[in-house]
C-alpha cells in the first residue's frame, strides 16, 4: 500500500480547513502540510452559505454586545470564554479575508457594509450580497494556491483515523479516481468536514454533509458534544430545502401565515413594525421562529402543500432594485426552483434542518481529547453556539477557530516525534481488509443504500424534530438500532475501483448512522427544553441539572455513553432570553 507522510494533515477543504491550512503554512513554511478532501475544495458546502458573517467593526457596536447576543442566542449553553475569544478575534479574521480579496459589499465611502441579522442587536453582519459563503470559500481557496507548502489530495475519501499509543497518527483514505487505498501519516490531524445535516430528510445541507469527521472521531474514541442541538432554519423552500437567507428578513421581509398575518407577534417576539427591528419579530433567533411555525401549523394557520405545510415570506415591498442589489440570489433561486418571482409574489417557506450546533468536542484551540487530533468548523463543538447558533456566526467561526486549530496543530507537529508505519501497520491492514470484504468484494445482501438512508432520515424527522418527547425518542433509538443491523445487509451493485460512488455512499451511510445515534441518545438524556432542544415532556429549562454540555462516547453496544461537562460562565450569568423588547 502507498504510504504518504506529512507533519499536518487537514481533512476537509471548506472554510475551516482552508483557513487552517493557511495558518499552518504561515506558522512554519517548512512544515509539510496537506489537505485531503472528498470533493475539490471549491465544492465544499461553505459555498452555499448566503447571508453573511458577523464581526464587530462599526463604532456603534461592541465586543460585549456581540458576546451577549451570542450567549443569549445560545440559551446560555455556550462556553463564555470561547465566545469572548471568538468575538475578539472575529474582526481581525474578517479583515484578513478582506485583504485576501473577498468581495465584501461596501458603503459609498468604500468601507465594509454590515446588515442586521437574527438575534443580533447591532448591525454587524458582513456580506457579499447573498453569496457570502461562496465568495469566502473561493477567496480562501484561491489564496491557498499561492502557498506552495499546501499540498492537496483532492477527491480522496477518508475511511479511518489511525490511532496508536493514545495519539492520532494519520488516516486511511481511498483515492476515488482509482480506488487505490492509501495511508497518510501525520503528526497532527485536523477534522474540518462540516456537519451532518443529511441525517435528516429535509435539509439545506449538500449531499456531502454526512458527518464524516464526527464519525471518524467518534469511532476513534473522541466524544461528540451537544449533538442534541439541531438548528432548523425557519425559511427553506418546500421540496428542495433550498435556503432562503435570513438576509431576506434582515432587509425587511415579513413572515405571514395563511391569513396574511405576521404571526410571530403571537410568540413573544415583539410587535410588527413596517421596518425591521433588531432582535425582534422576523429578526428573532432561528430556534424561536421555527418553533413558532410548528405552533402556527398546529393552530391550522399555515398553508398545506404537497411537500408539507408552509407560510409565506413576503419581500415584495422591498422593491426590485433592493432585491436585485442586496439579495439577488434569493430571486434567482425562487425563479429557478419554485417558479415564482419574489418581486411580485410571496415565497413559500417552511423550517428546514440547517446546522448542527454539536460536534467533535474540542478546547479553545480546536484540540480534541485525543492527542494529535484537532477539529474546527461545523464538525467541531468548541462551543460558541450552545443550544442555538445565531445566523452569521458560523462563517466567522470557520475563520477564527480554523486559524486557531491550524496554529495549534502546527505547534503540536513541531513538538512531537514523527510516526513510523510499523506501529500502525496492523490497523492499516485491518482497514484495507474491511473495505475489501465489507464493500468492494461484498456479495449478497438485500437492502438498498437509499432505502436504509431514507428510513434513517424518517426516524430522525419523526423523533428528533423541532419538538421532541421521551416516548418518540425511545422509539427512535430502538428503530435506529434495528436499522443499523439492516445497514449491514446492504447489497452493492458496483464492485469496481474507478470512481465508485456507491462505495462512498455506503461508507457515508455508516457515518450518518453514527451521528444519528449520538443525536438521538443525547436528546433522550436531556430532560429539559433549551434553545433548539424542545421536550414537550420537559418544557422548562433546567439550569440546576442541565447547564452542561453532553458528551456522547461510542460504546460496543448500540447506545453511546452520555456524560456531561460544565459550561464555562465568565461574565453573563444565565438569564431569560428576551426578544422584541
Amino acid at each position, binding site marked *: 500500500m502507498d504510504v504518504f507522510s506529512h507533519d499536518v494533515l487537514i481533512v476537509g477543504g471548506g472554510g475551516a480547513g482552508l483557513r487552517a491550512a493557511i495558518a499552518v503554512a504561515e506558522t512554519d513554511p517548512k512544515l509539510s502540510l496537506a489537505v485531503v478532501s472528498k470533493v475539490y475544495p471549491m465544492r465544499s458546502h461553505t459555498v452555499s452559505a448566503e447571508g453573511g458573517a458577523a464581526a464587530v467593526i462599526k463604532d456603534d457596536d461592541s465586543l460585549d454586545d456581540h458576546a451577549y447576543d451570542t450567549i443569549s442566542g445560545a440559551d446560555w449553553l455556550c462556553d463564555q470564554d470561547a465566545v469572548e475569544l471568538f468575538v475578539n478575534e472575529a474582526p481581525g479574521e474578517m479583515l484578513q479575508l478582506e485583504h485576501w480579496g473577498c468581495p465584501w459589499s461596501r458603503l459609498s465611502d468604500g468601507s465594509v457594509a454590515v446588515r442586521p441579522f437574527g438575534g443580533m442587536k447591532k448591525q454587524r453582519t458582513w456580506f457579499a450580497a447573498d453569496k457570502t459563503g461562496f465568495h469566502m470559500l473561493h477567496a480562501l481557496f484561491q489564496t491557498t494556491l499561492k502557498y506552495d507548502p499546501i499540498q492537496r489530495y483532492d477527491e480522496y475519501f477518508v475511511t479511518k483515523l489511525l490511532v496508536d499509543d493514545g495519539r492520532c497518527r494519520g488516516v486511511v483514505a481511498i483515492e476515488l479516481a482509482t480506488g487505490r487505498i492509501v495511508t497518510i501519516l501525520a503528526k497532527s490531524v485536523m477534522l474540518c468536514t462540516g456537519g451532518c445535516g443529511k441525517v435528516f430528510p429535509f435539509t439545506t445541507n449538500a449531499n456531502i454533509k454526512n458527518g464524516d469527521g464526527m464519525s471518524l472521531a467518534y469511532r476513534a474514541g473522541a466524544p461528540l458534544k451537544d449533538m442534541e442541538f439541531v438548528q432548523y432554519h425557519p425559511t427553506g423552500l418546500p421540496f428542495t430545502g433550498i435556503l432562503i437567507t435570513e438576509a431576506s428578513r434582515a432587509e425587511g421581509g415579513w413572515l405571514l401565515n395563511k391569513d396574511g398575518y405576521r404571526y410571530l407577534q403571537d410568540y413573544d417576539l415583539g410587535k410588527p413594525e413596517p421596518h425591521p427591528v433588531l432582535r425582534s419579530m422576523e429578526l428573532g433567533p432561528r430556534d424561536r421562529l421555527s418553533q413558532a411555525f410548528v405552533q402556527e401549523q398546529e393552530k391550522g394557520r399555515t398553508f398545506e402543500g404537497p411537500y408539507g405545510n408552509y407560510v409565506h415570506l413576503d419581500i415584495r415591498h422591498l422593491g426590485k432594485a433592493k432585491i436585485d442589489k442586496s439579495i439577488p440570489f434569493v430571486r434567482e433561486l425562487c425563479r429557478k426552483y419554485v417558479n415564482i418571482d419574489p418581486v411580485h409574489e410571496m415565497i413559500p417557506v417552511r423550517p428546514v434542518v440547517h446546522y448542527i450546533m454539536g460536534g467533535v468536542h474540542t478546547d479553545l484551540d480546536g484540540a480534541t481529547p485525543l492527542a494529535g487530533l484537532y477539529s474546527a468548523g461545523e464538525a467541531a463543538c468548541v462551543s460558541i453556539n450552545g443550544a442555538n447558533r445565531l445566523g452569521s456566526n458560523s462563517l466567522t467561526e470557520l475563520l477564527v477557530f480554523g486559524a486557531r486549530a491550524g496554529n495549534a496543530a502546527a505547534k503540536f507537529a513541531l513538538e512531537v516525534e514523527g510516526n513510523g508505519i510499523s506501529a500502525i501497520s496492523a490497523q492499516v491492514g485491518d482497514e484495507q481488509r474491511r473495505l475489501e470484504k465489507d464493500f468492494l468484494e461484498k456479495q449478497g445482501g438485500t437492502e438498498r443504500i437509499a432505502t436504509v438512508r431514507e428510513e434513517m432520515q424518517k426516524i430522525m424527522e419523526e423523533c428528533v424534530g423541532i419538538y421532541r418527547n421521551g416516548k418518540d425518542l425511545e422509539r427512535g433509538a430502538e428503530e435506529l438500532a434495528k436499522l443499523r443491523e439492516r445497514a449491514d445487509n446492504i447489497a452493492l*451493485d458496483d464492485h469496481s475501483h474507478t470512481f465508485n460512488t456507491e462505495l462512498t455512499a455506503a461508507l457515508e451511510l455508516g457515518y450518518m448512522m453514527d451521528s444519528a445515534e449520538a443525536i438521538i441518545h443525547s436528546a433522550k438524556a436531556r430532560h429539559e427544553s433549551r434553545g433548539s432542544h424542545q421536550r414537550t415532556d420537559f418544557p422548562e429549562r433546567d439550569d440546576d441539572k442541565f447547564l452542561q454540555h453532553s458528551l456522547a462516547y461510542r460504546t460496543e453496544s448500540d447506545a453511546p455513553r452520555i456524560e456531561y461537562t460544565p459550561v464555562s460562565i465568565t461574565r453573563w450569568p444565565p438569564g431569560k432570553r428576551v426578544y422584541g423588547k
Partner: protein
Amino acid sequence: MADTITVSVSRYRPEQESEPTFQDYDVPFRDDWAVLDAINHIKDNIDGSLSHRWSCRMGVCGSCGMMVNGEPTLTCAAFLSQYAPGPIRIEPLRYFPVIRDLVVDITSFMTKLKKVKPWIIRKEEKALSEGEYRQSPDELDAYKKYSMCINCLLCYSACPVIGLEPNFIGPASIALAQRYNLDSRDEGALERLSILSQDDGMWQCTFVGECSEVCPKDVDPAGAIQRYKLTGAANWFETILPWSSK
C-alpha cells in the same frame, strides 16, 4: 402528460468497457425535478453502479455539469420539463478525459486555474491594524461579475478552441484573471498579462462566445477575454512606440 421519461445515459466503466455506451432508464416525469434528480433516482433506485458528481443542488457548488442533449448544462439547474417528452441524452462534459460514466478528469483545469495567479498580488501588504482596503461600490462592480464563477467548467465544454487545443488556458481561468486585475486592491495585472500572453493564453480565443452563452452565472468570460485582449494589445503598442516611456 406522460408519467415517465426516458433518460439515456453515457456509461463508461474502464475496468469492463473500452468505449462508452448508452444505457436507457425510465424515470418518473415530475415537473419539479431537475435533471440531476432523475440521475439521482437512477443511482438510488435502479442502478447503483452509475457514477456522477453532485453536491449542493442549488446551482452554486459547480459539481454537476454534464452534457444534456449535447449542451453543457448544470444538471441541478435544468428541469426535466425543458426536455419533455424526451428522451434526454446525458453525457460527461465534453473535451475532458472521462474517468468513469459522467465523471470527468478536471486536473487540467486545476492547473490552469493556479497558473493565472488568482489571488491578490501587492507590492506591500497593508497591516490588518490599518483596517480594510477602501473599495467603493463602483470599484466592486468593476470586477464583481467575474468573481461569480463557480468553476462548473461548462464554458470549457462549450469552447471550440479547447476542443482543438486542450492546452488553451480557457474561459473561466481568463475571467478569473480579470476578476483580480480589475480589483482595486490588486497590483498583479502585469504579472498575469505576461502569463496570459503566452502561446496557450488569451490570443488562442477566436471569440466564438459560446462560453458566455452556456455560463449559468452570467460571468461572461467571452467579454472578459475580449477586454483582456484590448489591454494586451495596448500594452504591446506601448512597448514598441517611440514615445513610450518603457
